C-alpha cells in the first residue's frame, strides 16, 4: 500500500518514473481505501476494478518500455480518474444516478472518455450524483446521498457529488463532472478542490447524458490548478459529434498584467460573513502580486436563477422525453421526485399559451445577462466572486424546500446562462473546518487566463494541499 498518495500529476509521474510505486500499486491502494471508507461516504455507484487493473498494467508497461518519454506521449499516464455516472463508458454500467437506468450498460464511450483513455488515464469507477445532474447537494440521487469527506454530516455539494467526494477522500487523483448551473464548481468548493466549468462549446459533450443542452458543459475536479489545466488541454477542441465544440479557433491569448473585477451584486448581505472575509483574503493575495482590482456591476445578477430554472427545466423536459423504456432503461414510472418536478415545470413553461410568458421571456432576460458580462469584460480580465453564499450545508437541511435548494446556485448559474468559463479554487476553511472556495469567471474561451490566475494563487497558498481525514 502507498502511504503518501499523490496530490498532483507531476508528483505522480516523478514517483512512477523513480519506481517508488507502480500504477498497479496505486490502483491497489485506491481500491483498498474505497473498500474501507466508501460505505460511509457513498461516492461510487460502480467501482471498475477489472478495467482499472487492465489500464494500470498497460501504464506500467509503457513506463518500463519508454521511460520518461511515456509521459510526453501520454500526458495523463497513470492518473486514476473517477467519472461522474453521466459519462458513457462502453461496457460499464451508466445510471445517471437514476433508477430509470439502474441496469443500463453503456453501448459506446463519450468523446471525453476516449480522450482521457488515449492520454493514459485509468478509470476507477463511476460516481454518485443527483439523478440526471438535478441538484446542488447530492441528495437527489436514487442511490442514496453522498457525504462530505470533510464532515460526514454535511453535503459534498452537487450535482457532481460523488466526483468531488471521491477526490477529496483520495479514492482517485482526479474526477469528471458536468456543470449546467453549478455542478462542478459548487461541489469543488465544498470539498476543497479545483473545479472548472469551461466555456460553453470548449469541450465536446458527446456521449455524456444531457440535462439542459444550451447550458451543459463538462468539467473536471483536481487538487491543483495545473492538473486541472492538463485535463482541459486533453479535452478541449472540436468534435464532429458535438457541433458546439469549437475551442481552438476562439482561444483568448493570456497576458501578464491583470485587472480583476469585483461585481457589487455578488458581495451583498446574502453572503455569509466567513465567505466575505475569505474573499477579502483572496484579494490580498492577488494584490501582493500586483494584480489590480476594480469595482464593477452585473446589474441583472438577481434574475439569474429565474432565467436558469425556466431554461434548464424546459430543456430537461425535452431531453428526458427520450426515456420511454423502449430502447433501454426502465419506464417513466422510475423517475424520482426531482426529475418529475423538472419535467413537469419544463413541460408547463413550453406548453401552448405559456411559452411566451415564461420560456421566451427567460430567453430575453438571458440576453440582458450576457450583455452585463460583455460590458464587464471590456473593463476587466476576470471577475472574482463567491461560489456559494455559505460553506457546505447539513444533509437534510434543504430537502423539503426545493426552491431554497435552487437558490444555492445563485452565484454560479450566470456563467452558464452567458456561456462563460468559471473556475472554483480552494481558499481556506470555515471556523468549523469546512472548505471555502472562490470563483473566477472570464470572457468566453479565456480558460488560460483563469488558469494563470489560479496558479498565481496556489503558488502563494497551501489550502489545496490539506487532506480530509477519514
Amino acid at each position, binding site marked *: 500500500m502507498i502511504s503518501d498518495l499523490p496530490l498532483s500529476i507531476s508528483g505522480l509521474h516523478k514517483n512512477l518514473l523513480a519506481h517508488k510505486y507502480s500504477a498497479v500499486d496505486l490502483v491497489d491502494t485506491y481500491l483498498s481505501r474505497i473498500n474501507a471508507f466508501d460505505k460511509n461516504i457513498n461516492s461510487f455507484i460502480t467501482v471498475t476494478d477489472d478495467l482499472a487493473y487492465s489500464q494500470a498494467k498497460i501504464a506500467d508497461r509503457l513506463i518500463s518500455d519508454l521511460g520518461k518519454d511515456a509521459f510526453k506521449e501520454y500526458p495523463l499516464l497513470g492518473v486514476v480518474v473517477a467519472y461522474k455516472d453521466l459519462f458513457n463508458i462502453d461496457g460499464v454500467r451508466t445510471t445517471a444516478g437514476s433508477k430509470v437506468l439502474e441496469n*443500463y*450498460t453503456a*453501448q*459506446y464511450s463519450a468523446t471525453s472518455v476516449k480522450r482521457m483513455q488515449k492520454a493514459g488515464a485509468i478509470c476507477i469507477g463511476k460516481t454518485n450524483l443527483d439523478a440526471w445532474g438535478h441538484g446542488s447537494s447530492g441528495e437527489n440521487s436514487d442511490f442514496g446521498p453522498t457525504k462530505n469527506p470533510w464532515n460526514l454530516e454535511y453535503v459534498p455539494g452537487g450535482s457532481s457529488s460523488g466526483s468531488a467526494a471521491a477526490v477529496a477522500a483520495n479514492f482517485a487523483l482526479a474526477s469528471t463532472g458536468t456543470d449546467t448551473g453549478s455542478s462542478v464548481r459548487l461541489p469543488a468548493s465544498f470539498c476543497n478542490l479545483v473545479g472548472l466549468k469551461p466555456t*460553453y*462549446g470548449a469541450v465536446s459533450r458527446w456521449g455524456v447524458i444531457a440535462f439542459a443542452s*444550451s447550458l451543459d458543459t463538462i468539467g473536471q475536479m483536481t487538487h491543483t490548478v495545473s492538473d486541472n489545466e492538463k485535463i482541459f488541454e486533453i479535452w478541449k477542441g472540436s468534435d*464532429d459529434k458535438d*457541433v*458546439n465544440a*469549437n475551442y481552438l479557433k476562439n482561444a483568448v491569448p493570456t497576458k501578464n498584467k491583470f485587472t480583476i473585477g469585483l461585481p457589487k451584486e455578488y458581495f451583498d448581505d446574502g453572503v455569509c460573513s466567513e465567505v466575505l472575509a475569505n474573499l477579502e483574503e483572496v484579494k490580498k493575495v492577488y494584490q501582493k502580486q500586483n494584480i489590480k482590482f476594480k469595482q464593477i456591476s452585473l446589474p*441583472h445578477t*438577481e*434574475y439569474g*436563477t*429565474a*432565467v436558469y*430554472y*425556466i431554461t434548464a427545466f424546459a430543456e430537461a*423536459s425535452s431531453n428526458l*422525453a427520450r426515456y*420511454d*423504456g*423502449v*430502447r*433501454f*432503461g426502465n419506464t*417513466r*414510472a422510475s*423517475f424520482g*421526485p426531482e426529475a*418529475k*418536478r423538472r*419535467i*413537469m*415545470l419544463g*413541460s*408547463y413553461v413550453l*406548453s401552448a*399559451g*405559456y411559452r411566451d*410568458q*415564461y420560456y*421566451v*421571456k*427567460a*430567453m*430575453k*432576460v*438571458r*440576453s*440582458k445577462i*450576457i450583455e452585463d458580462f460583455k460590458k464587464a469584460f471590456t473593463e476587466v480580465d476576470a471577475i472574482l466572486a463567491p461560489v456559494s453564499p455559505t460553506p457546505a450545508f447539513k444533509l437534510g437541511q434543504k430537502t423539503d424546500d*426545493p*426552491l431554497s435548494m*435552487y437558490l444555492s446556485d445563485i452565484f454560479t448559474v450566470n456563467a452558464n446562462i*452567458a*456561456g462563460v468559463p468559471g473556475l472554483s479554487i480552494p481558499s481556506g476553511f470555515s471556523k468549523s473546518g469546512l472548505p471555502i472556495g472562490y470563483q473566477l469567471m472570464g470572457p*468566453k474561451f479565456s480558460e488560460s487566463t483563469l488558469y494563470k490566475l489560479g496558479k498565481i494563487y496556489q503558488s502563494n497558498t497551501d489550502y489545496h494541499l490539506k487532506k480530509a481525514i477519514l
Partner: protein
Amino acid sequence: MAMANFDIKSVARLSRLKLTPSEEKMFENQLSDILNHVEKLNQLDTKNTQPTINTTGLQNTNREDKILPSEIESPTKALREARNQYNNYFKVSAVLDKEAL
C-alpha cells in the same frame, strides 16, 4: 394570475408521468412556489430585447453528406438494452388501432 390555469393533472399528462393523489398535491404546491419565484422576470422591460437560444451564435453547421461508421458496432449490441425485441427490431406497444386504419 397564471397560477389560476396551472392544472397539475394536465401538466402530468403532457409530461407522460403518472402521479399519485399525494404526489399531485405536493408537486402542485412546490411548482407554484417556483413559478411565483420566476414571476420576478416581469419586472424587466424586454420589449426591445432579442431572445438568446444558444450562446455560441452558431447558425446551421453542415457536414459532408456521407454515412459515418456507427459507434455501436452491431444491431445485436444496439438491441442489447431493450426489454422487448423481435427479429432484430425494438418491439413496442401498438400506437394505432385497427379501426383508424
